[in-house]
């Protein structure tokens, strides 16, 4: 452990912030540019939440039957 500590200690940490900024801007700019290119390939995936509620049929009770309580007065 001592040797790792020495290596990390000697490396200096002042440039961490610059590295962080560089990584951020490179990644953000590259992906950001990609967003500007029009594409149809995500259409299907983007619609996934909208196509998941169509049951084939409705059947099986999920718990034992019980008497139906009186309906509350309908409110708007």
């Amino acid at each position: 452990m001592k040797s790792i500590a020495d290596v990390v200690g000697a490396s200096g940490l002042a440039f961490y912030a610059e590295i962080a900024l560089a990584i951020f801007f490179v990644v953000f700019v590259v992906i950001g540019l990609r967003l500007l290119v029009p594409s149809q390939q995500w259409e299907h995936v983007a619609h996934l939440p909208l196509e998941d509620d169509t049951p084939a049929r409705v059947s099986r009770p999920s718990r034992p039957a019980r008497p139906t309580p009186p309906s509350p007065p309908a409110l708007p």
Partner: protein
Amino acid sequence: MTSNEGTSPAVGRDALTTFTPGVPLAAGAELESFSYDDAIVRKFLIATFTWGLVGMLVGLFIALELAVPSLNIAPWLSFGRLRPLHTNAVIFAFAGNAFFTGCYYSLQRLCKARMFSDGLSKFHFWGWQSIIVAAAITLPLGFTQAKEYAELEWPIDIAIAVVWVAFAINLFGTIAKRRERHLYVAIWFYIASVVTVAILHIFNNLSIPAGPLKSYSIYAGVQDAFMQWWYGHNAVAFFLTTPFLGLMYYFMPKAAERPVYSYKLSILHFWSLVFMYIWAGPHHLHYTALPEWASTLGMLFSVMLWMPSWGGMINGLLTLRGAWHKVVEEPVLKFFVVAVTAYGMATFEGPMLSVKSVNALAHYTDWIIAHVHTGALGWNGFMTFGMIYWLLPRLFQTRLYSKKLAELHFWVASFGILLYVVAIYSAGVTQGLMWRAFDSTGRLAYPDFIETVVKLMPMYWMRALGGTLYIVGMVIFGWNILMTWRSRPAVYEEAVVQAPRLVKAYSDAGHGVPETAGGWSRFIGMAWHRSWERRWLLFTVATVIAVAVASLFEIIPTFLIRSNVPTIASVKPYTPLELVGRDIYIREGCFNCHSQMIRPFRHETERFGEYSKPGEFVYDHPFLWGSRRIGPDLAREGGKYPDLWHVRHMQDPRSITAKSIMPSYPQLLTADLDYGVIQSRVDAMAMLGVPCGDAVKQGAARTMAESQAKTIAAGIAQQGGPAGLERKEIVALTAYLQRLGTDIKRLGPSPAAAGSAP
């Protein structure tokens, strides 16, 4: 695997199914019939409301305790013990159950599969509720690790890990057996939340048990502070943000009946958020004894975080494009719009607060409380309400009882948030400015800390009113849930869903990616990401790497570089009596109101004394720097007042400071100090590497503690205080308070007082 699934190869394509219309069934794919487990969703929904109401009521009670200190009527109802109960209840019980509600509902539908195991779902539900009950019992009784949002003691921590693993198995099991090839963006956020919370929970809670419900963090001082805020900040990130972003990406399109504005933007949002959030924790420790490089790194990444956060917010709001007219009519959408707007405000304010010069004013003040509540009440609360209002008719298979009541809930709660945050923002800025004000002669303009407390009273009352309105909204919400539930059918219908099983052969044809595209085109066309979306294991590993890289870059240097924590020769471990006194300080939650960290600002050193050094905390398991100053800093409390002052102050704070809002602790003068636990606590400290000297010899710790207690008690009696306190808890707490910050005043090793430094 559940039994509610079966293969129906005979079902024709014209049946109502969930596979994508227009996309031909792959060769060899056969339709399978299954149903979703909505019973578990209903359970989590009820738990969300129940714990939400409890957590908010506790919040209102402690808010009132600040305005009316006499409400601290019993030790287990005191502010210091109840504040962690409030935070844990709203984060892990309310928001946690809300996440599980939405996750169990949406995951099954997005994967076109029932949950991997109904048994694991039930274990997860009951296990999580049991943990909440355990928290509700242990925290008011004073069992705490003294780490914000990680207060629960070690047996409960183990239970949390077990239940979380069960949830993870269920989630990944469901993903593994899914019938939809692509993992929708909501699932990415669920995956990131599940794996990162596990990492954070395990590493921050590593501790050495010193009893059935007592433990000491394996980290000390600066390192412990760093780990805690790495955890604390990312608990907000991966428990209150990413899970709710997942819910946003699923439920907003559902409610608006249109797809997310930009799926590609969600890719950028996800990866940049997951990668950057984890670096930002050190911004909670600006100008403390944390090394400056770590603090600066935390600030930079926090500022960067603004961009992906707003990318997500914009994506959420623009999902409503062309559907804004629905917002007028639909309370669900109203809640979502305010939630996403609150997310945008909180994620703008967060980076701003992380800038050191802003943080210098805001840290330790109520400004941070206002910031947190903008996120919690606005973002988490309103996302939850919107989601539940949308789910109620679907889960209970009936009409929502009253849309008008939902509207009323929206307006009452919105007004409540407004009153709450305006009051507490004012309180925070007022505090910060008063603390740092100097008069024309160069002296502190408000030298008595109590002046800054009294000034906040009108804001505290206004905050309580805002909180009350929010809770009134919760009651309306509860009534709507109850009445909707009452009109449920006698028997819930269970929809049978059909979808084709996934087959190995797959092509991107028909999805806009040319089969013949070259490597570069596929890269720049982000075909690789589509590929990742089909491979859940690869996706999970990539997420873990994104999180781990940031963590390791910050944590390893903090632990390995010795120059980060320069040692101070005169700093010695606590004596056995001081150690148990410190445990009483922790038990009563004193760190919730008092910091122990003087920042290197003139207004702080003038008020509290010499600024804190990293080397002063090397034996502090756990660190007790605190994050808030409802009362003054105590880092240099030792030796400021005679022992009797502390006895009188703990017995009745208002007998010392007329307008103090501190709870009274008369019980400390009558409760017997448990000398029986001292040896085991010293031994636990020794296991952590604290040089306890002779105190580790069997029975020595107790003898040393008794000797020191006798000396202190005799001194108190001599000063005119009550006699015979040597076996009472107040003596240990006094010993600890009188030790605080005194080590660096000594030139050499501490003097060999009776029973002192071992």
